[in-house]
């Protein structure tokens, strides 16, 4: 295995072009090192951690920009993220363990494109964009189309994620991320549900509701039918019940070691309901009636 430490995005991209499918980018390495140990060793390992200015959180023109090398811990401890993007903050604080959060990067989490990746459903509901660099230039790709399957993304083998661009939701919008796992820490989500709710001016109705479902399909998913059902309405217990059941049908989970598919749908239903109750209350100050 060859090992490289490019000092610029350009150098990194040319290494990726040169080595093609043999090459593997490594950032925090919390996924890559596990794969090297248990799956296979790449022909060339391209460590991007020496590239300056790929880490950091900045606010720019109605967006938060988070560099690909920003660690999950830095996001979790950022006051800016906590204030403006509570749904992302909520996911990051439930991620693995402190040790892993100190090492793992958001870019790695995204490019790994695991359906259970903690930051992925929040980025979907935030309608964020991936800023990708290729040898022929840069482009912005919405996360809606970025994730293509387990481990597959629009970055492909030759692209580099440099940043994520996250439009800051309207003031008054609230978000939560709910994780269901076997143990209390250091565990992959069996189901993850991100809910974001923006109230109307009078705080009487949900002007916008977005729901992201993790670990229940080949990619992280949105639940468009459920969102449509809720949009513009006041959330009542009956409506939330209906929404939970509908969200469960929008998931397409599999059965594996950790859970049956059937159970995953049940959990989607329960967590969707819970997420709606919590965001409704946070956004309107009212309990669901």
């Amino acid at each position, binding site marked *: 295995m060859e090992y490289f430490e490019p000092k610029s995005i350009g150098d990194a991209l040319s290494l990726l072009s040169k080595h093609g499918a043999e090459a593997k980018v490594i950032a925090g390495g919390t996924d890559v090192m596990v794969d090297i140990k*248990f799956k296979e060793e790449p022909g060339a390992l391209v460590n991007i951690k020496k590239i300056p200015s790929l880490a950091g959180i900045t606010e720019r023109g109605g967006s938060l920009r988070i560099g690909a090398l920003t660690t999950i811990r830095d996001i979790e401890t950022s006051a800016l993220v906590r204030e403006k993007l509570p749904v992302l903050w909520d996911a990051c604080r439930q991620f693995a363990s402190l040790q892993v959060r100190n090492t793992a990067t958001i870019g790695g989490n995204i490019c790994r494109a695991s359906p259970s990746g903690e930051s992925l459903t929040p980025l979907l509901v935030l309608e964020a964009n991936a800023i990708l660099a290729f040898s022929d230039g840069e482009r912005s790709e919405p996360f809606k189309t970025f994730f293509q399957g387990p481990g597959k993304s629009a970055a492909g083998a030759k692209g580099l994620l440099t940043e994520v661009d996250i439009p800051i939701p309207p003031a008054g919008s609230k978000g939560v991320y709910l994780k*269901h796992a076997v143990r*209390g*820490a*250091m565990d992959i989500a069996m189901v993850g549900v991100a809910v974001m709710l923006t109230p109307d001016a009078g705080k009487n109705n949900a002007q916008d509701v977005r729901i992201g479902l993790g670990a229940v399909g080949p990619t992280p998913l949105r639940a468009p039918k459920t969102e449509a059902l809720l949009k513009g309405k006041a959330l009542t217990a009956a409506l939330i019940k209906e929404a939970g059941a509908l969200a469960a049908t929008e998931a397409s989970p599999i059965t594996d*070691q950790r*859970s049956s598919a059937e159970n995953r749908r*049940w959990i989607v239903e*329960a967590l969707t*309901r819970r997420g709606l109750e919590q965001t409704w209350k946070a956004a309107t100050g009212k309990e669901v009636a």
Partner: protein
Amino acid sequence: MSYQVVGKSTPRTDNTAKVTGEARYTSDVLLPGTLWAKTLRSPHAHARIVQIDTSRAERAPGVRAILTGNDVRGILYGRRYRDISVLAQDKVRFIGERVAAVAADTLEQAEAALDLIDVRYEDLPAVFDVVAAAKDGAPLIHPDMNNYKGLPKQFDQPTNAFVQDVFTRGDIASGFAQADVIVENTYTVPRVHQGFLEPHCCLVWIDEQERIQIWSPCKVPQGLKSSMAAAFDIPKEKIRVNPVTIGGDFGGKGAPFDEPIAYLLALRSGRPVKMVMEYREEFIAGAPRHSGVMRLKTGVKRDGTMVAHEMEAYLDAGAYGGFRPGAVIGGVAHAGGCYRAAHARISVSRVYTNNLPGGQFRAPGEPQGVFAAESHIDCVARKVGMDPAAFRMKNLMVEGDETLTGSHYKDIKAKETLTAVLKASGYDAPKAKNIGRGVAMGYRGPGGGNTAMQLSLNPDGSVVIHTGLFEQGTGTYTTIRQIVAEELRCDPETIRIDTLDTDLGVSYDSGIGGSRGTRVASSAAYSAACDAREKLLTMAEKLLNWPKAEITLDGDFLVHQKKRQRWDELLKGIGRAITGEAVTRDDGHSPVTAFAAQVAEVAVDSATGEVTLRKLTTAHDTGAIMNPVGHQGQIDGGVVQGVGYGMIEYLPVLDGKVEVANFGEYKLPNIQDIPVLKTVIVESASGVGPYKVKGIGENPISPVAPAIANAIEDAVGVRIRDLPLTAEKVYRALREKNG
């Protein structure tokens, strides 16, 4: 009795070495010219080996020796029951069984050579279900079982159920006839791995004098010698087990694993041979706790008096039974519980299947049996409309009773222990919705054993102990040191204990296990220290003309009235050390047992089934506590392992194939899963040995899982009879209940 050192929290002897990295583990031992060996494992659960061709592997770079079943014909090993093939002979019996072994210059070369061994298999009918395997007509896994050494009882016809133990009391049929209410249920438990950090490993070297030098974290070094000697028909004296630190045992490191293979490869290559199992191999072939199916049937009078208690247990031994001390797993019989019933029948079968072999894990048999029994007792109590704690109180054994399996103990503290836990846990306090409390109990007396110990007071002022007991990681050496310090009135830190070496001084020990460490060690250390003191005082009397009865010890000094004399100076004068010796034979049934009672408090999320263990209170009936911090460590560790067994851990096996390969997939609890732990000690003066001790190591683990299961039913009204108690099982049951 008041003591200076005994009974006070004392730092462990091995703290510094472990923290600084100085402790020497087996894989740290390096000998010049060492080869690495790996084994080829069977991908088939039950198959005939039609042909095995090693010729390509023999020519591979770095390869020095290769073994197959043809090289080990007729050799079977095991701890006492000897049914394990060193390498599969003619047929394989589980996925992961060792079929061939290669020793090469490097680990990578050994691994690469494995891929060049060609084996042709022909599948045989396999059986994976323990109950099916026990039936007539099931594929026979060991047709020769009647000829194996160490089989407790022969059978007319060979059977997979190679151990069939039955305890009876009264007449079970008439017991059920007297009952007003009969409750019958089946409980199932999965395999769980011990989860030690250091996998099985060994280094074997045949030295210039043709002695077999072994480094291995086997916790029973004398047993390892015996097993090797028996398997290869060599005198025990030819074998030496060298000192190493163990990287965790939890019961799983009592049996020889790869030592026989490493020995044969060393013999063949003339080089030292090292083998270290990968954790993946631990999961597929590492002898975890047995899985099992247990049917319980209990008859009670309307007022809640138990009259008949029956259990039929099938434990899945997998393909080989020799990885545990005896063929029989006595602990399951604890499913008899701590209760009185005039009529009982408890049958326990250990059954061969084509799954991976079952082994030994902390309190062998009890976590299984106690889960079933203590869950069942709750079901019975609820059926007759009694509070489960009150039902237990009514039926618990009292002084003069024997256990349902016929064991007799004095100073029965069952009710005191239960009372203590109910009070300390707030069992009767009001609860919010979806909060539940569950109680469960267990009992276990300290195991017995034999050992030898030697203690020398040296002219250089040092105090050195040689013991036949292995430090399994529980702190036995710390206790030994406390006792010697107590009896010789010196500072424990000044006493050195040499890590066990089967060549040195003491070569007699029945091994650590069965919570016997403190019982056996405290007797031996006390006797050896008293012997040394007696010899020292006798010498002092002679040399100093002080009347022996008036001499006391104080650190480095002998003291008589106002006069003080350093003892090392006297020894320098006579030019020799003083040696205290003890040979302890204490392997009888303990006259006392130790009860444990626990209350789990859970919160159940009724929308997802998620169970949060909020608090676990554990009460223990103890003897004198030698080292409180060590004692508490055993309690907390045992409870946490119980939490893992209850809620998280299991080794998934599908058609004989283990489906996890690492600790990412095989989950153990971590710090977030540990609830508030509370301990209550119910101390009594009736322990055994010079300090009146009882065991603790295995007592805390077993009641945890049923206490949680019982708490779940208390919280949300569903009963889970299959471990672990996952959110999915709870939620599924809730859906069924609520329609």
